[in-house]
């Protein structure tokens, strides 16, 4: 039994938990809710074990200090840790707010993410550390960054659900905003799926994500396909916009109060922002100062994390100083996460710079 066996168990547990959570919401029986939580916790324990085992494997292999062997050095490992933080954050919320309905949204994200990581064939090999990564700051910097990303993604989901629940009219800007965002997410996910089935078989997994992402759509050599992809995206956005009310009706059934969502959005950001500032920006700067001789070099990753920081700083100020509540701040929270995700993945895929460890390789 190695770490991937346990990752498999957690993947299945999370997907099973999603089904039980939905059954719970439909039936409202307390026992089913407890079962859902139990399965999630089992998945989480197995997930934790798997990370611990990978840590140990890396430690044995690299011959480096225990703290430097933290399994957070490539995209595969970082995404697994990201999902782990997400589930942890959800469990905390479940126990604090005594509300399970949210689990029906988080567990499928976790399960699908783990399954995607597995299917995409991202390099699972344990690779030795490049000289620049051999530092004790690795643990603090990377781990805290991902805790912050997970907190931000929680605020994203609650913010998005908040918008879905509270918007009424199709002409309302908040309604247009969330349908547009969701439309783009759905499109990108769908097109990545097409890429996957078109190229994944033919090319090595290492090259797939780096060079073949959106090759069957936006980056296709043929102009016709390119234009069709854009039309498809617009069509999907319009469909989401047109039938957004259906989603709202479904969401209404879950019985989550808008105030709770607003509060969880704020609380997640209130945790994510200081953690991101300290672990992502400050520790990152200190480490860069040691490794590269400059604490800030306007490297794309640094610049994008600063932009992320600005967006969340704006969220906090608009809430505290201007007293914004509800839809307006929810829009900011959703935007913040889109920027944060670009900082995490987009920068490595699209821009070049010093910070290229997150590459798929």
């Amino acid at each position: 039994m190695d770490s991937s066996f346990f990752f498999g168990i957690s993947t299945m547990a999370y997907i099973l938990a999603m089904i039980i959570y939905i059954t719970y919401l439909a039936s409202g029986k307390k026992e089913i809710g407890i079962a859902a939580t139990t399965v999630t916790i089992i998945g989480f324990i197995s997930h934790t074990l798997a990370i611990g085992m990978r840590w140990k494997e890396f430690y044995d292999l690299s011959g480096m200090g225990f703290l430097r062997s933290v399994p957070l050095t490539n995209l595969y490992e970082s995404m697994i840790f990201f999902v782990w933080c997400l589930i942890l954050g959800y469990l905390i919320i479940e126990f604090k707010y005594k509300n399970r309905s949210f689990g029906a949204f988080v567990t499928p994200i976790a399960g699908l993410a783990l399954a995607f990581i597995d299917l995409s064939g991202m390099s699972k090999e344990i690779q030795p550390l490049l000289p620049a990564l051999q530092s004790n700051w690795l643990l603090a910097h990377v781990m805290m960054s991902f805790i912050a990303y997970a907190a931000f993604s929680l605020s994203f989901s609650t913010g998005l659900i908040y918008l879905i629940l509270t918007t009424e009219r199709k002409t309302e800007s908040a309604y247009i905003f969330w349908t547009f965002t969701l439309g783009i997410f759905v499109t990108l996910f769908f097109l990545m799926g097409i890429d996957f089935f078109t190229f994944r078989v033919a090319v090595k997994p290492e090259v797939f994500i780096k060079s073949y992402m959106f090759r069957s759509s936006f980056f296709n050599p043929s102009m016709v396909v390119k234009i069709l992809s854009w039309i498809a995206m617009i069509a999907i956005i319009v469909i989401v916009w047109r039938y957004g009310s259906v989603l709202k009706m479904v969401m209404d059934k879950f019985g989550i109060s808008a105030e709770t969502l607003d509060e969880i959005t704020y609380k997640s950001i209130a945790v994510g922002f200081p953690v991101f500032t300290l672990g992502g920006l400050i520790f990152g700067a200190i480490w860069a100062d040691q490794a590269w001789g400059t604490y800030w070099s306007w490297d794309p990753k640094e610049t994008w994390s600063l932009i992320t920081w600005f967006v969340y700083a704006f969220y906090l100020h608009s809430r505290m100083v201007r007293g914004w509540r509800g839809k307006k701040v929810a829009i900011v929270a959703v935007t913040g996460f889109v920027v944060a995700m670009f900082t995490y993945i987009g920068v490595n895929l699209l821009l070049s710079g010093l910070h290229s460890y997150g590459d798929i390789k």
Partner: protein
Amino acid sequence: MEQEKNKTFIDKIWDLFASVKFAIIIFALISLTSVVGTILEQRAEPAKNIQILTRIFGESLAPTLYNIFDKTGFMDMYHSWWFLTLLILFSANIVICSIDRLPRIWKMIREPISPLTEEHLEKVSIKRELVVKGKPDTVKDFVTGAIKGAGFNYNESKEEKGYQFYSQKGSFTRLGVYITHVSILLILIGALIGIFFGFKGFLPLPEGMSSSVALLHTNSLTRTEEHEKERILDAIWTSSGSISSSSATLGMDENTLKAKMHKYGIQPLGFTIRCDDFDVYFYGNSDMPKEYKSWLTVIDGTKEVLKKTIAVNDPLSYKGVTFYQSSYGMMPNAQGKFILRITPKFGAPEIKQLNLGERFVIPGTTMEGTIRDFSPALSFDKQGRPITYTEMMNNPALFIDFKEGGKGKYSGWILKRHPTTAKLPEGHSVEFIDLWGVQYTGLQVRKDPGVWIVYLGCIVMSMGLFIAFFMSHRKLWVRIAEEKNNTKVIIGATTNKNRAAFEGKINKMITLLSKRDAETGSAGRRKVDG
């Protein structure tokens, strides 16, 4: 009249800078321009960015767009005047926003807490009530005990039917936001000090060479300028950093030389740094680098004052200048020395420095070897023929011919990374230690007197954020009043943050009080029974 007008103008500016809207505009401008800066590669060759622009906008638009971006400073935008202006506006915004709001906050901090009237107490956000046995004077002690237990130092005021205790904690935490703002300013001030009083340069230093200057980034130079720069560098290197003797060699007066050095980004260090050796270590048999190491010596005046082996994440500092391991490479056309360690079967090891084609003898024997060939990265193709797979020293190997008593014996490759190849059948060993003098170490050189202010700013920011997010200003009022020979306890409280935690604490107080009440009650009953 004139003054009045002036004042309103300044007021307007002040209001503009104090507004959140202005902050948003600055945030947005910094963010949007930065996005452009992450797409266009900064300080890169023009061809590279034209290629990027072509990929995004197509071939026809790219050259025009390149010119526009180039003229507006986007090719080195983080050092452009307008980006600096944005950062200054950002700081001004933070300062003025803070000053604008500070008096109000300061008042809230300094304001002593006072007892509340009954109807005010009704309106506070957190409220609990409970009735306990006994008159106010008897329950007073354990009520105040509970307040102390919750961590509050209280004031007391006598009221008509009882007492009121009131207290507040953490009023200073309202400053957390301002501490965070100050920290941003500290970081920006530290950065400015670094820009004006420090430098960031590069130094490619070949093994065995020393330098008393570092090279800074300059605008692109013409060919004649490039040539002159080389001449000046040569003069400085040969005179080991002395400006006066270099100016004599070059036939320039010292001031002209200094001006030229400034123009060409030649930055004197104030001492000399020498690279004694450089080496790369790899993981196992792979080409994945594990460690880059440079052995450096600092020479101040004529004395060697400091020796250190640096690696990535482990730099050397001397007199405020820090040297970081940043890159490495091969010197074109360099003649290096092969360093061999020769250990006869019965005898002590001996280190030899040899050239290509040179002969060596294994001490105490008639065996001799000749270095016939060298490969920086030896590998074998499918047919088993030796090939060099990269020009970098990834797997250095020597081909050596061995003879004994003048007769050819055998020949073969000795690889630096594979010590087993050093063993000869006779029991002697010929180890390939290094090819010395052909590699250079790429050092990042930095002097930054402002870095400590930046670090201080980081510490202050961590504290500020902690206070701002995890500490709160809590107020507590507890009123005890006689009600039908018992005492009614009313607890009122407010907090500016994290209400749930404070409510939890107050609920604990209530449980404590009701528990005490139950205990004293039963004790009283027992007395009656007895």
